[in-house]
């Protein structure tokens, strides 16, 4: 589904954000990407739907080369859902309008069709009663659930999560993770950048550990938590699991 082959990326001439990254996500697979801040994990996930350009290597999404100048990027991006750290709901639109906008303007669905789909998804994330509110009236956890529903409204073939819970207050993290766990169990293909090792333990198939722009470890979940091979991954795990 997602193939990342020997990807290199630089910010300016001197800072290399990604160094020869190679990995893949199969259909229905859940892959968690973790690592210390500044390790390039968010950059990597943003390269998958070309929100960030890459300078070298290739990324292939459902058979289409993302970094080919001839690729119709809006069309490709419409097929992959993305959830951001800071939700990025559109504050001037009501919740239901947030869910309908791209359905109507990108997929060409009728307003009624989009509303039905939107309402159904809001119900699914437990926020049907908030459809007529504006994003600022909702809590962070609720906003992030709306953001997930907004992405799902496009019937994506895969979902990308960029630190979906790191901007949330602790008591709101689980309501978002619950939605994500359900999604994973239904067989959604997911690539998730997160520090939530409990989530990784519960639903991930594989865990990727990154440090300084490199993929240091790419292992099955049981192997990763059981016996990480690299020193850096061991140190990272011992730090975040010690509490």
């Amino acid at each position, binding site marked *: 589904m997602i193939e990342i082959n020997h990807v290199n990326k630089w910010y300016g001439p001197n800072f290399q954000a990604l160094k020869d990254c190679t990995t893949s996500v199969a259909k229905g697979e859940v892959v968690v990407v973790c690592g210390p801040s500044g390790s390039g994990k968010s950059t990597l996930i943003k390269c998958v739907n070309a929100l960030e350009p890459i300078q070298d290597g290739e990324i292939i999404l459902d058979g289409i080369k993302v970094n080919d100048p001839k690729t119709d990027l809006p069309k490709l991006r419409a097929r992959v859902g993305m959830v951001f750290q*800071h939700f990025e709901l559109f504050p001037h639109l009501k919740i239901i309008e947030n869910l309908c906008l791209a359905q109507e303007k*990108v997929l060409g669905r009728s307003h009624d069709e989009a509303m039905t789909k939107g309402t159904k998804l809001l119900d699914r994330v437990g926020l049907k009663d908030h459809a007529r509110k504006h994003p600022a009236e909702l809590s962070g956890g609720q906003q992030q659930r709306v953001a997930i529903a907004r992405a799902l409204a496009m019937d994506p073939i895969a979902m990308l999560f960029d630190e979906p819970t790191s901007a949330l207050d602790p008591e709101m993290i689980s309501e978002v993770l619950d939605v994500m766990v359900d999604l994973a169990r239904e067989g959604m293909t997911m690539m998730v950048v997160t520090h939530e090792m409990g989530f990784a333990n519960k639903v991930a198939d594989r865990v990727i550990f990154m440090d300084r722009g490199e993929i240091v470890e790419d292992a099955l979940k049981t192997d990763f938590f059981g016996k990480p091979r690299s020193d850096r991954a061991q140190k990272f795990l011992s730090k975040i699991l010690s509490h």
Partner: protein
Amino acid sequence: MFSNLDFDVIRRSLGFLFLDGMTFTLTLTGLAALGGLIFGTMIALMRLSSYRLLGRIAGLYVDFMRSLPLVLVIFWFYFLVPYIGQWLTGSSRPIRVGAFASSLITFIMFEAAYFSEIMRAGIQSISKGQPAAASALGLTYAQSMRYVVLPQAFRNMLPVLLTQTIVLFQDTSLVYVLSIPDFLGAASTVAQRDGRLVEMYLFAALVYFTISCFASFGVRRLQARIAIVR
């Protein structure tokens, strides 16, 4: 010293002052603000575009317009447009452009320079995550601007845009150089005709002051309301 002033001249000319003069002034202000906003937004988008050349052209335009006194632009434009039109259409004589059309085009072009700076600040005030989220949903650049970025930029900048429109309302009085009967022009005509300069100019000042003052007050209230919503 006020004993020989005749304020009845104002009452006698009210119809001409407001039905003709003020109507013209408000029409010019409204159309110029609307046109300036549309044209200005386009310039702002050019300045922020990733094509350097477009940005350079837009920047030069803004600097050029802001470096000239408005009254000179109005004056020159009125005399130049017929010849530019002749050159563009290839006709044998300078084309006829009415004083209203000429002043409207001038104000739109001039105000666009100022509105573009306001809209540029407005667009830059929107976090990068918003267009990123729009892109991630599959919206094109144009759709992302139209449905996500510009509505927010416009809303954030509305008080500043309206304040600039109040300045524009006062600036429209400069069309007197083309002898157009806007509000000030109408007052001036009556003043010259009846020899009542002091009365008419005092009254004109009072009217501009009252309208601008009330408009500013309205903008401040609007600003407070927007601040609460956000």
